[in-house]
């Protein structure tokens, strides 16, 4: 076998979105040699797609807001399945993280008094989302990118795919992967690893996720023995584009509703009056998504099977100023002028609440030396995430993960990937390029598509035991077929070959989603079981944890940390306490 490119560092950060870059900044500031690995180019990560803003209780617009209300809103939005300590840390620290972003040159819209402007968002008690137009994610990622570049200390490896985390049985020692550009293998020896690989939506047909959302991080962590939490909770964003077909799933920001957009059915009725008369369009995402779904099912959908989202009443100038990228997106992709026509929208897979089980203080996973931050980690959002809480999440826990990983690296000996690991991994990863075992081999793109339909149809917004089992057996079948994947061409920038790797990750993660969803026999947050339509108070006390049991996947209920009395009191601060409690 060939000699791989070998690199050594204290902290290896996998993923270069907001969480990864924030972690890398923290690790370099702590004096650790840091490598950042990304599947794409720097600054292209999924964070750029975040539009609405960063939820932080600055109280610039609504002075009554403070971290306690933010804490309460987030806990109630997550149906109290959240890790309360994570939420507490988050609500506290996100305020500083936003200001820190500003001190790094990030720009936000301003209030007349010169503070950071904040806008209303679904299920937030007050106007809380710090934003800049509808491209807050881009601002965040560019600011972090500039900061990371300015420190100049982190070594950024662009277009590298890591395929395996290596443990020596006690702790993480590094990772193995390959360079996408030429297919050469890389071995990275690291004392600590921060996973910041984001979420996984690509196993669903209609998703707002970019191609990167394949769940590599969760799959690798699972393989190396980390526990995954709350995998059943997948957020449907209520508003994704549905037409033309190529644009199906692309996100229509919640900011459209935050800025006053209305949802209509085909009969021209604002149907949210029926489902949530208090918060209307700005109800939590699970509620709005299900409402649109029910309207379509009741035969009141738009021609392409969705609802109308209408912002025309705010006037052309206002729309172009506050929602410029939405205007542009519809103009370019759908030939729709949103200042003159309503948008057609339907729910789209958007976010994964679940993920690697982490310690709230340090973001440490159950494997020593392995940390996880951002969407790949679970616990903060519980059963449903509120809009604006993910951009905050990546900053708060990205920093904490980076610092904790640096601390771990400083207190541990140098580590290195054992020689034997590489050979085995090379054989496995290169298999699809060799002659197929039988027949012509499987086309990874078609396997991917089959998986997408299996998940979309049977493990999507509405689930039953039967549909989930159907989905699970489809996954098992696809797993078998995936062993025989074959792609033509060589190792140089071969997207077919790259897709093989993605399919493997997605199959692992899909199985975890479906198995957890089967276990949670209730409807809660984003999990909507048609065969268990009610909430089950017993299951309110547990998270479902997915773990590797030998060669098979197992799921167990784990009671979560009960929220202390004095913190429970804080829940009353939310304006939505009564209805949420009910």
């Amino acid at each position, binding site marked *: 076998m060939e000699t791989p490119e070998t690199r050594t560092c204290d902290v290896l950060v996998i993923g270069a979105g907001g969480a990864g870059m924030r972690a890398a900044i923290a690790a370099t500031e702590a004096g650790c040699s840091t490598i950042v690995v990304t599947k794409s180019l720097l600054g292209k*990560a999924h964070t750029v797609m975040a539009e609405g803003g960063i939820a932080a209780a600055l109280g610039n617009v609504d002075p009554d807001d403070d971290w306690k209300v933010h804490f309460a809103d987030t806990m109630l939005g997550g149906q109290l399945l959240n890790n309360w300590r994570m939420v507490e840390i988050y609500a506290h620290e996100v305020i500083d993280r936003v200001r820190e972003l500003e001190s790094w040159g990030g*720009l936000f819209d301003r209030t007349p008094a010169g*503070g950071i402007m904040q806008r209303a968002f679904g299920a937030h008690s007050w106007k809380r989302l710090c934003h800049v137009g509808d491209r807050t994610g881009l601002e965040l990622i560019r600011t972090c990118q500039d900061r990371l570049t300015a420190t100049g200390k982190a070594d950024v490896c662009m277009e590298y795919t890591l395929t395996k985390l290596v443990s020596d049985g006690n702790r993480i020692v590094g990772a193995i992967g390959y360079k996408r550009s030429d297919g050469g293998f890389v071995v990275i020896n690291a004392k600590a690893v921060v996973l910041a690989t984001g979420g996984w939506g690509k196993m669903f047909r209609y998703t707002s996720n970019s*191609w*990167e959302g394949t769940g590599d991080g969760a799959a690798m962590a699972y393989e190396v023995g980390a526990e995954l939490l709350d995998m059943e909770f997948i957020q449907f964003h209520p508003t994704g584009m549905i037409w033309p*077909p190529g644009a199906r799933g692309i996100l229509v920001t919640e900011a459209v509703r935050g800025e006053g957009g209305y949802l209509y059915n085909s009969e021209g009725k604002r149907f949210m009056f029926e489902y949530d008369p208090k918060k209307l369009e700005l109800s939590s995402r699970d509620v709005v998504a299900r409402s649109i779904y029910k309207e379509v099912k009741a035969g009141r959908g738009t021609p392409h*099977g969705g609802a109308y989202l209408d912002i025309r009443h705010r006037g052309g100038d206002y729309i172009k100023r506050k929602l410029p990228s939405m205007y542009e997106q519809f103009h370019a*992709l759908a030939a729709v002028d949103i200042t003159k026509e309503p948008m057609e929208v339907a729910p789209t897979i958007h976010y994964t609440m679940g993920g690697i089980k982490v310690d709230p203080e340090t973001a440490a996973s159950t494997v020593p030396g392995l940390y996880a931050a951002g969407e790949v980690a679970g616990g903060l959002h519980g059963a449903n995430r509120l809009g604006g809480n993910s951009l905050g999440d990546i900053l708060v826990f990205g920093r904490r993960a980076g610092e904790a990983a640096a601390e771990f690296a400083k207190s541990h000996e140098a580590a290195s990937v054992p020689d034997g690991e590489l050979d085995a991994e090379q054989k496995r990863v290169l298999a699809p390029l060799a002659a197929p075992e039988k027949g012509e081999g499987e*086309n990874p793109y078609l396997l991917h598509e089959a998986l997408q339909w299996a998940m979309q149809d049977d493990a999507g917004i509405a689930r039953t035991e039967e549909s989930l089992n159907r989905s699970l057996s489809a996954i098992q079948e696809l797993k078998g077929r995936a062993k025989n994947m074959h792609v033509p061409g060589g190792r140089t*920038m071969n997207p077919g070959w790259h897709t093989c790797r993605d399919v493997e990750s997605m199959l692992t993660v899909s199985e975890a989603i479906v198995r957890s969803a089967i276990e949670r026999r209730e409807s809660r947050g984003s999990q909507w079981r048609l065969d268990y339509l009610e909430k089950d108070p017993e299951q309110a006390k547990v998270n479902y944890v997915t773990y590797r049991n030998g060669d098979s996947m197992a799921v167990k209920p784990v009671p979560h940390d009960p929220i202390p009395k004095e913190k429970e009191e804080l829940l009353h601060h939310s304006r939505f306490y009564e209805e949420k409690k009910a």
Partner: protein
Amino acid sequence: MTDTAEATTDIRHTQDGRTGRTVRFSVFRGVPGAQASYVTYDVPEVEGMVVLDAIHYIQKNLDMDLACRWNCKAAKCGSCSAEVNGHPVLMCKTRVDDLPEGTVTVAPMKTFPLVKDLVTDVSRNYKVNAAITPFTPRKDEPTPWKIQQHDIERLYEFRKCIECFLCMDVCHILRNHDLHEEYYGPRYFVRMAGLEMHPMDDADRTDEIRTAGGIGFCNITKCCTDVCPEHIHITDNAIIPMKERVADRHWDPIRRMFTKKKQTANAADAAE
């Protein structure tokens, strides 16, 4: 559970939007050092199809190892830059029905070294970026900062940049004259303009813009502005204002005296 089946069909909406027509694509295939060629593919047209949809169709059904970069497919990440019919565009934003009838040619960006097919090596851009004096906050500002909307309004445009590098691709100074060492390129003047006009930034990049940046090479022919998918007025709002600032410093003795006075006055104001 017919209930579920119905439900999923509703939301999934089975119409595939095919128009019944076929569009012919001629796509550049090749790696450096080998014979490159344009390969023809026939792709069934789907309503509202963009060029990237066609490339994906080709990858899935016709040619699995056709390499192209893409991420978001929503014109927000700036990854899928290529030259469609010779015009630098984002493939995810270029609708096939907007193109003239006939074969659609897709080629990689010409300015950057080829990696494979539609993928080019854009690493140089990141090196230029790293050379720019980063954001340097004023030291004397009380926190949290108070910034007025009118102080940052013109900066939003610069911050919209998605780093698709189409401006770098089309810029004739890089594309035709290969002045990569001497000239930063449009994207980086946009970044520098964003830093220079930042109300909280304290660094002075005027000399850097002229010397390392080589702004004098720009002859303001505006192709960068023409191709920008984010509609940033790169020439008028970033490059020309930077040229004017360079003129203040290097070409205008009267202004030089005037600005010095102003700076002292400012300092005095701040001291009070």
